[in-house]
């Protein structure tokens, strides 16, 4: 797999965040992509969405300039207790119908064939960022840090941002971004 420079850079930063250095997030993602493309000859890649504190972070290995996806398969991963609810992977292939057998096999292996969905994610979402949701996650937690230094507990900081978002009819990350910008104009948030 030829990983884009942006994706490789973001995944390297995520590896850096881990307390166990033997794990290479980029290597794991690349390996999964390669296994998928070996199993399915027209496979294009995958996206994996993980929920962290109410923010959906999506890592995609799809080549933005590559061929169009003709089929998709969503696999929820909630069967495993060590994975947060709402975590899911979507596999993509160029040839329509190419994922039908895999869907049946994975459904059988996981024991929930009735919840695997084909072709519900077409066309795949094309984002400007290598990992969507990462900036929002960063800025929200930076705002938590700011509010903690102002005397809030982490729970109170979350509540305050949530309430401000409701009052302004906007999202928590927008409120968080305003707070961060108010500290020092034009300072770029982490990861941008």
């Amino acid at each position, binding site marked *: 797999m030829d990983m884009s420079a942006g994706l490789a850079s973001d995944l390297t930063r995520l590896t850096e965040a881990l307390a166990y250095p033997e794990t290479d997030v980029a290597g794991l993602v690349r390996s999964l992509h390669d296994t998928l493309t070996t199993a399915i000859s027209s496979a294009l890649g995958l996206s994996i969405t993980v929920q962290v504190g109410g923010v959906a972070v999506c890592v995609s290995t799809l080549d933005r300039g590559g061929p169009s996806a003709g089929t998709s398969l969503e696999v929820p991963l909630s069967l495993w207790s060590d994975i947060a609810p709402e975590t899911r992977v979507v596999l993509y292939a160029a040839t329509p119908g190419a994922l*039908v057998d895999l869907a049946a096999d994975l459904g059988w292996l996981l024991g929930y064939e009735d919840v695997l969905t084909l072709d519900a994610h077409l066309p795949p979402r094309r984002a400007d960022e290598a990992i969507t949701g990462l900036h929002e996650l960063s800025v929200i937690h930076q705002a938590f*840090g700011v509010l903690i230094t102002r005397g809030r507990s982490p729970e109170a900081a979350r509540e*305050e941002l949530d309430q401000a978002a409701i009052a302004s009819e906007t999202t928590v990350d927008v409120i968080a971004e305003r707070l961060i910008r108010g500290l020092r104009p034009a300072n770029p948030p982490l990861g941008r």
Partner: protein
Amino acid sequence: MKQTPPTGPLQRADAVVDDLSQAPPSVGADDLQASLSALARLSTGKLGLEELLVQVATFAVQAIPHADGAGLTMIEHDRADTIVASAPFVREIDAIQYGIGEGPCISAVAERSTVRSGSLGGEPRWPRFGPRAGRLGVHSVLSLPLLTPDGVFGAMNVYAFDKDAFDRNAAHIGEMFSIPAAIAVQNAQVLAQTRRVATTLQAALSARAVIDQAVGILMSRAGYSADEAFDRLRHMSQTQNTKLAVVARSIVDEAVRRARSRHTGGSAGA
């Protein structure tokens, strides 16, 4: 949105069983049927990848006449990666061939075809591996590549202590077994890797969230930009020889302790 049709490994394995029932009775056909049915019932939901591979190897021993042990090897980046065995002697034999880079599994993967020998001790194809296997009392081998339409991703090695244990019928049965086995193994590999990526991302993003909180604390206290605050954290991590996540956690914990001990407040500014 379409729901998936009911055509999984069970159906494909059963199709092989149906083919067998149409054919004249042969040695091992009943064992193959039983093993294919067991293979089709494997569920990754309850088994990890390694356990599932051990089960597949065990079913191979049951399916193939005269087999005493079997192992499965997954190839990743052109090298043997996950290796499992149905019996300790198989692990020993496979360790020899991967250690010296010569043997029936390596040949089966390279040639993408079944490799068979009934006299390993004097086998000219593997002059270093063969005698060592023979000295361990293992004289016959059947190596079956695990194939996809685009290539080979592993191999199944079946061993016997007797000489000339595997005839053409055994090789044929092994090949019939290896087709659904390859599918089951590869699907399990997709799921196992997906699970590992998901759990690792979850852990990394959670750790990253704490780092961002520490960044926010440093921005608020010292007037750093986000990048300056991150660089400061990284510098602390390096000078203290402590992981970034640990340094960040200690800053956040200390700030939370301070926050809990005072009752002043600002506002989110919204």
